[in-house]
């Protein structure tokens, strides 16, 4: 019973994913042709003053993504330090 339920769930999930990438719901591959990168290459030096266009994308145009990256690092460091401190506390109490 459980295997049948899992199989049905798998089929539904795969059908959903395939439906998501088929042409009626998604645009053709590579279409529309690159508008955003042309805009960034032409305007990054004037708008952000950066010679390094990658830095201007990472910290300016897509800064929100970098904020998430920094949050991931912060969470990882917090988790590691918390774990090691918890093991120390358990050793003291026992």
């Amino acid at each position, binding site marked *: 019973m459980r295997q049948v339920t899992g199989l049905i769930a798998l089929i539904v999930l795969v059908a959903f994913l395939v439906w998501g990438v088929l042409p009626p719901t998604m645009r053709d591959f590579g279409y529309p042709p690159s508008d955003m990168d042309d805009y960034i290459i032409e305007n990054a030096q004037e708008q*952000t003053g950066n010679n390094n266009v990658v830095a201007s994308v990472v*910290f300016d145009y897509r*800064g*929100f993504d970098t904020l998430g*990256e*920094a949050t991931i*690092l912060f969470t990882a460091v917090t988790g590691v330090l918390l774990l090691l401190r918890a093991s120390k506390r358990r050793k003291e109490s026992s």
Partner: protein
Amino acid sequence: MLSKIVRTVANQLILFILIFGLYVIAHGQITPGGGFQGGAVIVSGVVMLLVAFSSKELKKSLRERVLSIMESTGALIFIILAFVGIGTAFFYNLLVGTPIFGHIPPIGPNPGDIWTGGVVPLMNLAVGIKVVAGLSAVVLALALFSSGEEVEE
């Protein structure tokens, strides 16, 4: 702790690694690299010290509390700089054209100018502080844990 030859070479080499890491962080708006990459370079120097000397020795100079404060400060500076341009948009580069990092380079290839980029150099610096402190704390904590020591508060 490794032999005296390794320790001496590591002592001489850490200076150049620190200089290179600071260079990569400080020139993030001109050359490839930035806060994350330069911070990783400096942390590789810290790992070298950790291998050459023991983690017990390094614990005396790298306090975990200081590293935590440094990392939180970096994250706070980053978010504050992101909120500087909130009048227009989140992460708007408000400092372009102002006296602080405000030079605008000519369009196309040019030799580059350190005083450009608006908030991007400051964000690189903040992220560099954050990455150096965070990864150093992780590496030091793991090394101390695997050698049976405790993390020093």
